[in-house]
């Protein structure tokens, strides 16, 4: 009677809920798909070429680096495909194939695998790829120049370039609804505001990204742009314009939220997100670059480890 087993407790974890990096990667790709498809329909076959080649090259680079470094083949987790898709979404539709190949190599190999693969990268791999290309071949990232032969049903001047060089008089052609519906030029998957917002909300609801980072990033952009706009309405565009143009939305939901380069605690997430938002508008309004999202997020990636020092006191710790 005394030896009767009434309760058996095994070691944790007790049950696997079925979540995995693979599920996460493919769901993030699914969330990004509306914006990417919109870009492909807008810019046609050249955009499809860029997106397709980028996804396949990203996986190929990961496979090759796995083989070269004699590590387990990790392409099954879908992260390389996700990097390829997000990278393509930031590019102009007319990007040459060699730029896609180089950029995905930089993103996957230099941005991620040099640091030991997924989870070890201090910077967002996609942004490392884009930043190096932007510095190396800046003319290809000048959307006015890259899309010079496109004649779509809306004003084709790149909104952020017009705002930077001409002030608010240069952006009268852009309405908020038009910007939300993707009626402006830009990266293949970065212009369809509504699609990006819906994708972001899906990721937040599913718990794949943290709302704190996205919301604080957008708030940082909004408040800073509002202050600039209030200081000189003829020179600086309004906050809504900054929220819906350039890489802001794709940055808020798909780039700033990358796991290993963003903080995990509440206050650090707010600092990280808001800092990237503020830097974005500072670079756009008083910096050299037309769009600041790429460098702003990379800069905040850099201070991410310091942000994470702000954490709850360990339980029972006296001092």
């Amino acid at each position: 009677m005394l030896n009767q087993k009434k309760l058996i407790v095994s070691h944790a974890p007790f049950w696997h809920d079925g979540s995995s990096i693979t599920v996460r990667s493919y769901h993030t790709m699914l969330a990004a798909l509306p914006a990417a498809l919109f870009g492909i329909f807008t810019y046609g076959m050249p955009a499809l070429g860029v997106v397709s080649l980028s996804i396949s090259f990203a996986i190929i680079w990961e496979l090759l680096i796995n083989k070269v470094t004699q590590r387990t083949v990790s392409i099954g987790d879908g992260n390389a495909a996700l990097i390829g898709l997000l990278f393509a979404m930031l590019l102009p539709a007319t990007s040459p194939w060699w730029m896609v190949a180089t950029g995905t190599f930089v993103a996957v190999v230099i941005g991620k695998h040099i640091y030991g693969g997924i989870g070890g990268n201090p910077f967002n791999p996609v942004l490392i790829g884009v930043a190096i290309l932007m510095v190396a071949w800046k003319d290809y990232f000048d959307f006015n120049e890259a899309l010079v032969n496109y004649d779509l049903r809306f004003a084709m001047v790149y909104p952020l370039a017009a705002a930077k060089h001409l002030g608010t008089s240069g952006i009268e052609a852009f309405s908020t609804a038009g910007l939300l519906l993707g009626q402006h030029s830009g990266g293949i998957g970065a212009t369809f505001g509504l699609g990006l917002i819906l994708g972001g909300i899906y990721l937040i609801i599913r718990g794949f990204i943290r709302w704190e980072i996205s919301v604080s990033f957008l708030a940082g952009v909004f408040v800073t742009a509002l202050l600039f706009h209030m200081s000189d309405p003829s020179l600086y565009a309004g906050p809504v314009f900054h929220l819906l143009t350039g890489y802001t939305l794709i940055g808020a939901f798909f780039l700033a939220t990358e796991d290993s380069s963003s903080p995990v605690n509440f206050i650090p997430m707010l600092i990280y997100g808001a800092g990237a938002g503020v830097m974005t508008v500072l670079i756009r309004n008083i910096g050299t670059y037309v769009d600041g999202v790429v460098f702003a997020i990379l800069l905040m990636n850099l201070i991410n480890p310091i942000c994470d020092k702000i954490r709850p006191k360990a339980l029972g710790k006296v001092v």
Partner: protein
Amino acid sequence: MTPKRELQIAYSLIIVFLFVGFISYAAFPAKTPDEPIRLMYKTVAGKVLFDHKIHLSDSGYGLACQDCHHHPEEPEELEEALVACGECHKVLEEGKTFPDSCLDCHEAEDLEDSEVMKKSDAFHSQCESCHQEVDAGPEEERCSWCHVM
């Protein structure tokens, strides 16, 4: 999903997207239209974005081709020989007095005394004179009216 199945998906993605990407780049290269839509002039003073379509279209400024493409002068010749500004107005190689494009229609000996205005002068005089006629700038010393990008 088993790791084997995940790998199969990844390999399938490589094959499908490589194929689609290759076909898209090879069969549908980005085309340059016969009549330009916008042109980006790269200069040391900052790039100039010129909207060719707005200048030409009736809903825009409604200019005739000959208003800018002034050579050759006869309209019937112009239809066939419409050339880009930079074909003639360009920096010449050392020792040359006229660009090679002249030889498409003229004999070399006919061109010995000819002088072609250099590109920056040609563009400045062309754009400025027309813009000032219609009171559309640029103000004196304001390079940033055009050199903005």
